[in-house]
């Protein structure tokens, strides 16, 4: 089980946070921490997501990147647990 921190920059559209949470769960990643700045009126939102999974983080990054309102996904760190 590995733990990762994702920093996701988004176009700050309705339900973008829900979309990310849905994809993260569906693709087999457990969220154990979240910090979101969305609906701030700036058009750009930032979501930090701490996730754990047996699966490769690239699988999740690719799927989040497919969401229409995503600008950038960064994997900030990667630590074995």
């Amino acid at each position, binding site marked *: 089980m590995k733990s990762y921190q994702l920093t996701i920059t988004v176009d700050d559209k309705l339900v973008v946070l*829900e979309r990310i949470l849905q994809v993260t769960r*569906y693709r087999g990643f457990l969220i154990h921490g979240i910090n979101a700045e969305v609906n701030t009126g700036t058009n750009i939102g930032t979501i930090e997501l701490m996730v754990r999974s047996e699966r*490769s983080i*690239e*699988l999740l990054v*690719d799927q989040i990147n497919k*969401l229409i309102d995503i600008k950038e996904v960064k994997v900030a760190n990667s630590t074995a647990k």
Partner: protein
Amino acid sequence: MANEKKQTGGSLLFNVMQQHGVEHVFGYPGGAIMPIYDALYDSDVQHFLCRHEQGAAFSAIGYARASGKVGVCLATSGPGATNLITGLADALADSIPLVAITGQVATSAMGSDAFQEIDIFGLSLACTKHSFQVTDINELPKVLHRAFAIALEGRQGPVLVDIPKDIQLAEVANSLEDFSKLKNKVKLPPANVGRAIALLSQAKKPVLYVGGGVGMANAVDELRAFANITGVPSVSTLKGLGALNPDDDNYLGMLGMHGTKAANIAVQECDLLIVVGARFDDRVTGKLSEFAPHAKVIHFDIDTAEINKRRAVDSAILGDLKINLPALEIPLAITDWQQKCQQMKNDFAWDYNHPGDNIFAPAVLNEISKLMPKNTCVTTDVGQHQMWSAQHMIFNDPSNFLTSGGMGTMGFGLPAAIGAQISRPHDTVIAVTGDGSIMMNVQEMATMKRYNVPVKIVLIDNAKLGMVRQWQDLFFNGRLSETDLSDNPDFIMLASAFDIKAKTISKKSEVTDAINEMLDHDGSYLLRVQIDAKENVWPLVPPNTANDRMMEST
């Protein structure tokens, strides 16, 4: 040039549709979408009233798949919207461009558990490519343009636009300005063609594995040119059928769970798999860890997320197949391998000799595909008849074989055929279905009647849920749980209630005349083909088994 005349949201919807070339839509009215249906009254867009919203969604999918255009369906809020969900899921799984419009309760009532209110926007997250809920009339034009663009952009898919009733009624100073195509935000890395060419030129036993992406990319010609010039033996997924030239000696048929023996053995033995618009679906790979165990992989796709998803690749070629496939067109010296594959194709060819007088479904379907007019579009439902159609019918283009691949949705075939027929009024459309599947959207016979849609229905009737029955016999000790349908309605009487001419056949001697009568009939027709309930689909790769360890007819 902007047109500043005010119009309602409902009216704007149809004007934007027309800007995007939409001529036909499928739907069902209800309370929260009444302003849109009121605007429809004055619109040139032609609406087809289906008899269930799921039927509307599948007709829109059939329309899209048969024509290459975006399919559009409409439904009201609450149950109307939830009834679309299976169609949206089907379109997502098979990457079908669809725009679904749902009415919603007025913004002032949203979130109050109002009559026929459901959070379809929330429900859409898992079954659409993208979705919108419009709460500001001024956003509506942009949202609608984006919905059509997103449905078609990159890997195609369904988009839902939820429009509250007050937004449908609100006036907007539009703005029928030219829409601009969505910019592809995903910067695809330049394809590493050099690596792929090296792999290809070193391969001694390459196989071309073709999926539904070829048809979606409109790249049938480029694929066939690639197959011709390289001479690589080729196999197809369910959704890829029709992409390769069926007369090509190097084409080995469908691979996977019900694939041909030649196709599956070739893939298991190959040293290079050239994957084009396919995604290593579990019904294709069987036991993934033993799939094509000796092969390096070149993967062509438009969707970055499919690369390395289920199988690590040696070379990924991302982007438009029409551009990328020609870059790898190099003649190969693989005569021994070609001959071996062609030998397997001959050795393991289908055998239509079948003892007794009872009808053999594979032979009927093969004969239909030989007798049907050129460019006939065939749809299927899901189950044994679907796999027999995939195995034994011959298609010249992916848009001529419409089947629910990823989602495997029973009830798909009849409404999809209606949509296909409306998009291609001059082509024959045949819905191959089963006695289980047809009952899942049988109400769409009323849509056929209402609009005189001349779909031909071939009902393969074994009075069973045949595929489940087959698995119960093979893998559940013959414990036939809830798969007997011997109390089905009289399908001939049922068809006649909808003005559909119908006939039953049960003997081999009746087959040819019956097919010709159906094809020659001017109008809708249901041919009920009674078959032995014990017939199984062969070959079959059992679950979690390598594809070369298939069960075969004894």
